[in-house]
């Protein structure tokens, strides 16, 4: 929006429900405010809370699209509120909490519990080959491999892909985009000692990559633009390789 454009009056409809208040019923409230240049939903929501309704619940931390706190449904689509410019939206804006996660209140949901459980379920840590030796020089790794792992490591666990997933919305055990991406990230890491056959149970079951019905909304909504289609293809290839092709384990 240019500085000289006529300021718009925004109409923001927000889902409201406070589970801690026995008088609270799920409903929506509408707030109006004047748009300012470079206004993001971070600015708009704080303005609404500070000037109109001090009870409004939502989550922000870094406000620079790296911490993943502020994902919500913006006009029906999961997005990070902090980096959503109001100028990219129509005057009527509808904000709902992410589905698939437990509601804490209004726009705030419990992503922390979901991601911790996913990490435990997939054992999303390096399964070390040897204990750390503080006196040793680091193991070598090619910069290309490091870059490939980093690409998978860039997920910020905001939950947009989970909320957009047709399957995760009806089956809460499905690992969804973030979970599958996390698995792939460790699978490709030469420092992790797990073999492809050990990965098989994690990836091939009902919660894994073959359960995906391929609508790929996850890739469309990912704020980090992770190449999830390629990630799933990698997982399928590796899993099938482990099952049908190899006597032993396939190479990383």
């Amino acid at each position: 929006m240019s500085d000289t454009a006529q300021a718009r009056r925004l109409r923001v409809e927000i889902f409201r429900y406070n589970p801690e208040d026995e008088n609270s019923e799920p409903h929506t409230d509408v707030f109006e405010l004047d748009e300012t240049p470079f206004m993001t939903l971070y600015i708009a929501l704080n303005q609404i809370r500070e000037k109109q309704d001090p009870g409004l619940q939502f989550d922000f931390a870094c406000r620079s699209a790296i911490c993943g706190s502020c994902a919500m449904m913006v006009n029906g689509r999961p997005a990070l509120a902090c980096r959503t410019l109001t100028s990219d939206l129509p005057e009527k804006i509808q904000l709902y909490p992410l589905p698939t996660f437990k509601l804490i209140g209004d726009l705030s949901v419990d992503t922390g519990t979901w991601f911790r459980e996913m990490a435990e379920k997939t054992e999303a840590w390096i399964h070390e080959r040897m204990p750390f030796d503080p006196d040793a020089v680091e193991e070598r790794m090619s910069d290309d491999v490091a870059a490939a792992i980093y690409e998978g490591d860039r997920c910020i666990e905001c939950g947009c892909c989970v909320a957009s997933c047709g399957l995760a919305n009806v089956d809460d055990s499905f690992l969804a985009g973030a979970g599958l991406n996390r698995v792939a990230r460790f699978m490709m890491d030469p420092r992790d000692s797990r073999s492809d056959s050990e990965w098989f149970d994690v990836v091939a079951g009902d919660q894994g990559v073959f359960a995906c019905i391929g609508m790929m909304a996850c890739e469309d909504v990912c704020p980090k633009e992770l190449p999830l289609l390629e990630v799933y293809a990698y997982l399928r290839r590796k899993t099938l390789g482990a099952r049908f092709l190899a006597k032993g384990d396939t190479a990383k």
Partner: protein
Amino acid sequence: MSSRLITTDVLVIGGGLAGERCAIEAAAAGQEALILSLVPPRRSHSCAAQGGMQAALANCAKASGDSSTVHFLDTVRGSDWGADQEVANIFAEEAPIAVRELAHFGVPWSRVRGGKNHYFIKGEEVDIDEDIESDGLIGQRDFGGTAKWRACYAAAGTGHAALYAVDSEVVRLGITVRDRTEAVALIHDGSRCVGAVVRDLRNGSHFAVMAKATVIATGGYGRVYGQYTSNATINEGTGASIALDTGVVPLGNMEAVQFHPTTLSPSGILVTEGCRGDGGYLLDKNGDRFMVEAEPVKQELASRDVVSRHMQQHMRDGFGIDSPYGPHLWLDIRHLGEEHLRTKLLEVWDICRDFVGRNPAEELIPVRPTQHYSMGGVRVNKDGQAYGLAGLFAVGEASCWDMHGFNRLGGNSLAETLVSGRIVGREVAKYASGHELRADTGLAFAALADAEQRAAGWLARSGAGPNVYEIRDAMGETMMHKVGIFRKGDELDEAVAEIGQLLDDCDNAVLRCKDPGVNPELAFALRLKGMLRLAMTVARGAQARTESRGAHYRSDFPLRNDRDWLNRTLVRWGADENEPSFSYEPTGIIDLPPGHRGYGSDERIEMTDSLDHYNEDVLQVQTGHGRLASTEDMGSRLRRGAWKAITG
């Protein structure tokens, strides 16, 4: 969990890198650890660290000859001789271990590519052959205020990658993390800390945690500068604040506040120093690289305090670019090329696209200096043990350990979180294994009742009092404009008076939301007084310190004064006391004598005391200020005179 009192061996308040690394060390030593975090730990502000982590690995050509001694020298010079030199040395020696341990935990560090590499150095394009023998080792980039390329990195998402790797270890070890909880008071009897009172940010209830050892790892207090900070909304200094409330634990060097040269205008979002490290320029409205004239040797890569001051002065002199939000300068990284920007500086690319709608391969980036880092914090000894209260520890940005003195070097804080997390975690485990859990539940329930009373008091107030958010905004304006990059006696006097008024306003403020549950307005109101008290310690500390050192710059006292101010500010201020009380202790045993930093001004008031005399009674004086005994003797980890081999 509905229990009002729970117990653990080690309570860690804060789920960022320092807190988590500390908890890992304690858990690995067999202690039960509980981490409290305002947010799911992977959303802690450590994740926003971008460009790098300093460790003298000497893996690439421009790092050749680097060593922990050179890193020590850079750190002490960067601190403007405010650092504890023993702590700076411990840090420099152990940083390589911390970086390699992160590789073991899974951080995908960028690696050295053997053979021809293309770099930009001080405005020149150069090709450098990296030794083929070094191929695949952890790579390094240049950062400000360092003699060598030393910053290890994962694109511009170093903090994110580090935090995810460390949190993975927390999950592996099965350490309990209670996210959406906030410690609101320490439980103590005036000599020993036995836990904390906690507010649950899911439902607004309070509970008490009793622990053998308690660790504050809550990060910095940047949000006392209101919107004028690169910090996350959660960096409100809550840990330092509850330590200050005890009246027995001092905060160190609160006036030492760092302003980062390049944050986006106007949002204040960080744009990494790695941009300049990789060859980026600062330009003024005429397109001139003004830093070349201002700092001929280091140019854009002088220390942050020096670059921020040059930028601010240049804008005051009319060379900024005007905008509706005030003047800014330009960061130019166009010449680095799209491929470099979309790999090594990917997060910068994203931030420019998302928040200013610009393509940094083709367009300039609007930047200006903004509050970034809190060198001050809970004063601790070299083990992380807080002064004045046994069983209380502090680590990371929340602490004043104190390796940064009056100016932290870029990339040193990320390294500090891991190095000090390891060391302090070890000491915490030692302390916890040597002490019984104190079963004084009366102390805990009294503290719990106090906290509940405070919340109830806010809800009970009615009428037309001031609004908590307006008080916060006024605090931010005062702090940025009167306790900012350039400070002056008369403005500091005004700031102290204004913050005093805001403290009164806070006592009369009224909530408009009385909703049951977490009540976001109440959650903020409960922190506000603590934030104002921290702001006051910054302003009063700056008012008293009549010299310029590192990031603390007094226009009316422009010289560093080693004769009168080669010391550390300590401030105590019990929650029931009207006034803070200030005292000063020696910085520590000084091995590298005060001198020129190699950038910035070479003028100063020389110390008249001899170093031997200064060093003679450091332990005695610090002990008199509340320092508790460390496991090893003071000075045991200084490598006296090692720097002479470097400086000749």
